[in-house]
């Protein structure tokens, strides 16, 4: 009755969100009096996988099949299902990422498991029940959900849990083969196109986000957003109207029908704060709003605010960050 956690790797390293997920899994294992095994997907090095011991992982399984470097829904599902049977896993933990949702949903059928996505806290196990808290209504509410099946699959939302760091602890890395066949790679990508990160931070993984709205007046002014983001080590984002008119690419659109972020800090520049935008950001730990309109609804959802012109305020903030560093 172990806990299995899926860790996503990229460029040899374990993604930060997966360190959180691994920490979640080892804490669940502790609650259940069991151990947590990780199964790695993507491109990983053995040294980095061994370091998952710092997150309380007892063992790491790694299938070195080269076609697993890119995301393939069919193959990843089988890989994890095989690992789950091998480990007799009762609880499977994934990141609430595109990969986590795509794989978790298929696995829930294959393993006859209850599935909860968007989970924000460790489970409650009082009275023999297994209950998780998850975000619902686009961040406007939470739901406590009972997972009734014997097996449970949990996809944990980014930044909901602090990653553990027991320095120096390592986990043994076992090579393992799920005996994947060509049929498992039916949805293998013909091509993978990664965004040009240009040294920047990826939005879904970011702890700090600087976001711009229509108040930025045009794409030519985005250097102000980028300068502050760069000084902070933050990712850049935008509101829906901005991506709708192609000032910024769609993958930066944060909101109800864009991506949902939950960073430690979200700085909104020239965004009025429509309810659909708030849905994508309101689980951020700290929200800063800069807007020249003191009546902008976003101020009601903010922790800190500056009523002022973004073109005047942003350079001052960037300078202040540089001074602090």
């Amino acid at each position, binding site marked *: 009755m172990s806990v299995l956690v899926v860790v996503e790797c990229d460029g040899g390293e374990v993604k930060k969100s997966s360190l959180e997920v691994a920490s979640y899994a080892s804490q669940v294992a502790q609650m259940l009096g069991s151990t947590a095994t990780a199964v790695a997907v993507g491109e990983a090095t053995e040294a980095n996988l061994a370091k998952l011991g710092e997150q309380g992982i007892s063992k790491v399984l790694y299938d070195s099949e080269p076609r697993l470097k890119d995301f393939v829904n069919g193959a990843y599902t089988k890989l994890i299902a095989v690992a789950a049977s091998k480990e007799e896993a009762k609880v499977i933990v994934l990141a609430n990422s595109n*990969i986590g949702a795509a794989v978790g949903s*298929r696995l829930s059928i294959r393993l006859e498991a209850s599935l909860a996505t968007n989970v924000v806290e460790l489970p409650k196990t009082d009275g023999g029940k297994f209950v998780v808290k998850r975000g619902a209504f686009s961040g406007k509410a*939470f739901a406590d959900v009972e997972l009734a*099946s014997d097996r449970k699959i949990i996809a944990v939302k980014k930044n909901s849990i602090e990653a553990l760091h027991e320095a120096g602890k390592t986990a043994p890395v076992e090579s393992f083969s799920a005996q994947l066949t060509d049929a498992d790679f*039916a949805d293998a990508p013909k091509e993978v*196109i990664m965004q040009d990160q240009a040294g920047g931070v990826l939005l879904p993984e970011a702890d700090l986000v600087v976001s711009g709205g229509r108040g930025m007046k045009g794409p030519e002014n985005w250097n102000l957003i980028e300068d502050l983001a760069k000084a902070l080590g933050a990712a850049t984002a935008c509101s829906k109207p901005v991506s709708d008119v192609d000032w910024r690419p769609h993958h930066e659109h944060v909101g109800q029908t864009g991506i949902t972020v939950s960073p430690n800090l979200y700085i909104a520049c020239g965004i009025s704060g429509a309810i659909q935008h708030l849905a994508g950001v309101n689980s951020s730990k700290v929200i800063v709003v800069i807007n020249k309109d003191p009546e902008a609804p976003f101020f009601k959802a903010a922790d800190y605010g*500056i009523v002022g012109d973004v073109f005047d305020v942003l350079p001052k903030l960037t300078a202040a960050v540089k001074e602090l560093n």
Partner: protein
Amino acid sequence: MKFLVCISNVPDTTTKITFTPDNKEFNKAGVQFVINPWDEYALTRAIELKEAQGGGTVTVLNVGEADTEPNIRKALAIGADDAIRVNAHPKDAFFVAKQIAAVAKEGGYDAILMGKESIDYNGFQVHGMVGELLGIPTVAPAMKLDMSGNTATLEREIEGGKEIVEVNTPFVASCQQPMCEPRIPNMRGIMTARTKPLKVVEPTTDAARTEVETFALPPAKQGVKLIAAENAGELIKLLRNEAKVI
């Protein structure tokens, strides 16, 4: 080609969320319901592909009680040919996926499209469950979908980029922008929608695997601390020393 488009009936995006006094259910009183915005991408793209192929059908499927019919009619007005409603309260994603899979199996559809997730439950689960129940590939979330014969070419969003994926029919895709510009009904569509077939079927199983025990609203914010624009640099100090986030 035969398209099956699954839609859900959700509170309008501007709805203020409240719950029944026991916090067990969403409070529907006075709330306007709409077609789930993500599902609109699936619906419009299916209609566009059907038009491009010069034939085929687009069937809309909803798992819901009779009060969802106005939005099913709206989907017919936008351009779907016929509709099926599975007459049941959508208990959880597994329950809904089982109903969709049963309808899909009987209808022999080539492509099963739906939105990435519903804006009420935000599960992002049904697509994969349906694909697995039917033993066919799922592409989720899909930002682009083109068809050539029996082969679909899709762009699948991954964190930090996208994959170009080709799958053969039948397949499931969960759709999101920028797949297409969702259509709104025109007057002719609204008139013809009234007479398009809407079949009501009963659920094939009542099995569910999760149950909501209670809903809660997020804690209210403490109120905003304002910093004068002239003194903007002060904010950075507060973020470091008080909020401790940088």
